[in-house]
């Protein structure tokens, strides 16, 4: 099997384990972080800090390169403009995140525990992503 497929699986696994260790897979903890007016749990700021510190090293290393260490073309987002899709989408995401305490990564990990509530959330999230695809496709086609 191609090594890129193995690294995709291993990356997903490490990412998932990191979410479990950090506490981010627990919606109650996420909501305590977002509740700055209540009994605030600042832990998740440490998750972001730790992840960004390591990530920043990697993204500095690949600066100026066109290919990964394994010779794959680097696929970095090329968009630069702060369009309304980015801003409205991100504002909307924060609302959904604050409602249940789940963002996509932790939701997938929680799904893997078999918790019925996490399974329902993931099904709804994938349905939401499918709705996006349908809307985008209907936009791409001119209506006669």
């Amino acid at each position, binding site marked *: 099997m191609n090594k*890129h*497929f*193995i690294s995709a*699986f291993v990356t*997903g696994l490490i*990412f*998932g384990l*990191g*979410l*479990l*260790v*950090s506490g981010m*897979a*627990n*919606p*109650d903890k996420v*909501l*305590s972080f*977002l509740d700055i*007016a*209540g009994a605030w*749990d600042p*832990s998740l700021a440490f998750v972001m*800090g*730790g*992840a960004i510190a*390591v*990530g920043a090293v990697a*993204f500095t290393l690949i600066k100026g390169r066109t290919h*990964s*260490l394994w010779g*794959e073309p680097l696929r970095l987002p090329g968009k630069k403009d702060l369009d309304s*899709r980015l*801003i*409205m989408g*991100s504002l*909307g*995401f*924060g609302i*959904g*995140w*604050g*409602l*249940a*305490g*789940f*963002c*996509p*990564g932790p*939701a997938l990990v*929680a799904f*893997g525990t078999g*918790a019925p*509530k996490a399974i329902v*959330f993931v099904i*709804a*999230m994938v349905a939401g*992503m499918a*709705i996006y*695809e349908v809307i985008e496709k209907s936009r791409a086609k001119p209506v006669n």
Partner: protein
Amino acid sequence: MTIDMSSFTPWASLSGGVLIGIAAAMFILLNGRIAGISGILGGLLNPQKGDILWRTLFVAGMVLAPAAWLIAAPLPEMQIDAGYPLLIIAGLVVGISTRYGSGCTSGHGVCGISRLSPRSIVATLAFMFTGFVTVYVARHLVGI
């Protein structure tokens, strides 16, 4: 503002964050891609040739993280307070809006900030803002 010291887990959260950072670093250094969960998962709903297997494997790695964890230790606490109707609404909102906003906590919050992408910094500020506001409104004004 009061800090909930009994729930505060700086070391676990920092270590989990470092693991997440390692995953993000591996994916850009080896596969040349951004480890953004909403993009990886959402891309499966508009499949491109040669694009399906690595996405599926990444998602499988995340979903299997709890099973891998269980080999060594019992799963950490996971508390989902939201009821089913709220989980469905939150899931739909997260699904649609992360696709419109081109990313979530991982793609924008971890990878994007690690590479100092202006779009990701704006996106992260936007979803953090509405995340805080949503929890404030839900917990302190509406009282969910």
